[in-house]
């Protein structure tokens, strides 16, 4: 991309991008080495938000750890809550009432919508269009209202429990959810018209940071980032858990419609399309939710059997896998949380080579990373 002549010697410049930078989505720090505007090397430096969540896990009980999973990925706290609950249930082989599983799926998919909305909104803001961001926030507020109605909080929900959920849906919740879906679905087309297919936007994203399928797999990309490379792998479909097999939905993959398969635009478009699929899932779940209890009997002093388990679930930012080792006591012996964003950052240095500074922003946005999940 650059041509350098000996007659005009130029020098590389090191720029510190972050941890306070508007578009590093938190406290990511990237050390850029640039040749003019062209990035020759971008080394991510993570860990500014490290709160030792894994160490805390060894100190608290299984039930007490639930609120900490909220802080794992605060834009998709429901998904993290449920991931933790599912992991412990898998370890202790607890049967969960079906209604609870349905409620979990509803909240997970609603949270996926709200999380992807933020991804969409902040991405457009990164690209310089501020208006779609506020539209996205507006829609997300409605999801938050729903969650507030359900569990009393707007951001850190702490809704799932080992063996079920904290409470049944209050009267009117399901109707309100349906109303929201009816309101929300047409908005997606509006977003597409407003920005997704905007010429400038497409130009900014298409053919930028192309990740071929094999590379995506080798680097452990998961979730929308993997599917953006055209790999149709979705844990909800391919390694079904909870009641996901009962729903009819499509796995969205990148198609390379505006550029090369696996570019930023594909990753972006996968998210937009996934919101539509999530709407579909929530619609089905709301229609079919059975009656019954929402919480299995779990002893207050819960001690799972000795063992090791690894459970992964599809979170908005990729696979959240929890490796849980129990020594039979009330506290987990060791727990390791493998988060989508953390593993995704691994490929960052590779894909940003040779891009421009503005593209680095585009790459960060297209990965939809979130720092609390990276730094834990």
């Amino acid at each position, binding site marked *: 991309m650059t041509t350098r002549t000996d007659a005009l010697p130029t020098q590389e410049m090191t720029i510190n991008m972050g941890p306070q930078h508007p578009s590093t989505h938190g406290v990511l720090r990237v050390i850029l080495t640039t040749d003019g505007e062209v990035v020759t090397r971008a080394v991510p430096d993570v860990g500014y938000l490290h709160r030792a969540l894994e160490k805390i896990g060894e100190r608290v009980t299984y039930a007490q750890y*639930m*609120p900490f999973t909220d802080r794992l990925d605060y834009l998709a706290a429901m998904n993290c809550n449920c991931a933790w609950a599912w992991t412990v249930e898998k370890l202790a082989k607890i049967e969960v009432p079906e209604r609870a599983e349905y409620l979990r799926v509803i909240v997970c998919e609603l949270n996926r919508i709200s999380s992807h909305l933020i991804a969409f909104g902040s991405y457009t803001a990164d690209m310089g269009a501020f208006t779609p961001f506020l539209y996205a926030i507006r829609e997300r507020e409605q999801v938050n209202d729903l969650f*507030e109605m359900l569990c*009393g*909080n707007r951001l850190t929900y702490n809704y799932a429990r080992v063996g079920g959920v904290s409470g049944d849906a209050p009267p009117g919740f399901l109707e309100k959810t349906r109303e929201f879906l009816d309101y929300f679905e047409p908005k997606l087309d509006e977003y597409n018209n407003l920005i997704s297919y905007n010429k400038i936007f497409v130009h900014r994203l298409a053919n930028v940071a192309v990740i071929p399928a094999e590379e995506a797999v080798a680097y452990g990309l998961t979730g929308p980032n993997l599917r953006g490379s055209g790999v149709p792998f979705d844990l909800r479909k391919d390694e079904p858990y909870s009641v996901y097999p009962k729903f009819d939905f499509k796995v969205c993959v990148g198609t390379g419609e505006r550029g090369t398969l696996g570019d930023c635009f594909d990753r972006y478009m996968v998210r937009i399309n996934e919101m539509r699929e999530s709407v579909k899932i929530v619609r089905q779940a709301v229609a079919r939710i059975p009656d019954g209890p929402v919480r299995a009997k779990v002893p207050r002093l819960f001690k799972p059997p000795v063992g090791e388990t690894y459970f992964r679930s599809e979170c908005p930012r990729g696979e959240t896998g929890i490796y849980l080792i129990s020594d039979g006591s009330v506290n987990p012996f060791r727990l390791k949380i493998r988060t989508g964003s953390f593993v995704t950052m691994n490929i960052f240095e590779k894909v940003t080579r040779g891009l421009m500074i503005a593209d680095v922003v585009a790459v960060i946005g297209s990965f939809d990373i979130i720092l609390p999940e990276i730094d834990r």
Partner: protein
Amino acid sequence: MGLKAYLNDIVEAVVTTAKGMRITARYGVNPKEEVTLQYPEERWEIPQGYRGFLHNDIKTCTACNMCVKVCPVDCISLESVRGADKKMVLCSYDINIGRCMYCGLCVEVCPVNSLKHTSGYEMASADRGEMILHFIAEDAAEIKARVARQVAEAAAKAAEAAKAAEASKAAEVPKPADLSAEAAKAGGDDPKAAKAEAPKAAPEKKE
């Protein structure tokens, strides 16, 4: 780039821009689309089960310590002593709202439903100390002293009763015998408790 692609590029740019501008114009013109809530004047309706500040109804609280144990961030602290009627008496019940993460686990475990989330969410203070909610206004040491006094009184009463029972035992009245035996047992227990609590309360009183 052929001429056709070139012109196509231009047309596409104009068309997509126009499409986007139509949408923004619609929002710009339509005042009904405004969703802002003018916060201090307008407030949203707080749903039932909202997890706001914690409130403990100390009248019903049994000082069972469950909330303290379950709190993942140790924001609740309570002190209690055993009272004259063998129930725990709260001396202090503090919640550090600055530390609380509103997870609701404590409310869930409360066996008598005395600990509850209120709908309060507004708090600003210049001092971290103000973030600690004291649910018992009285000084902990005073309560302890008072309880210790009560316990001692009860013990004395029990001892008296025991003495009376002994006296009545000497008189060989069969019926209240087991009653007094119980009383004697109780009396035997209580002074122990009182002894255990009294020295603890005493130095604090000096402070």
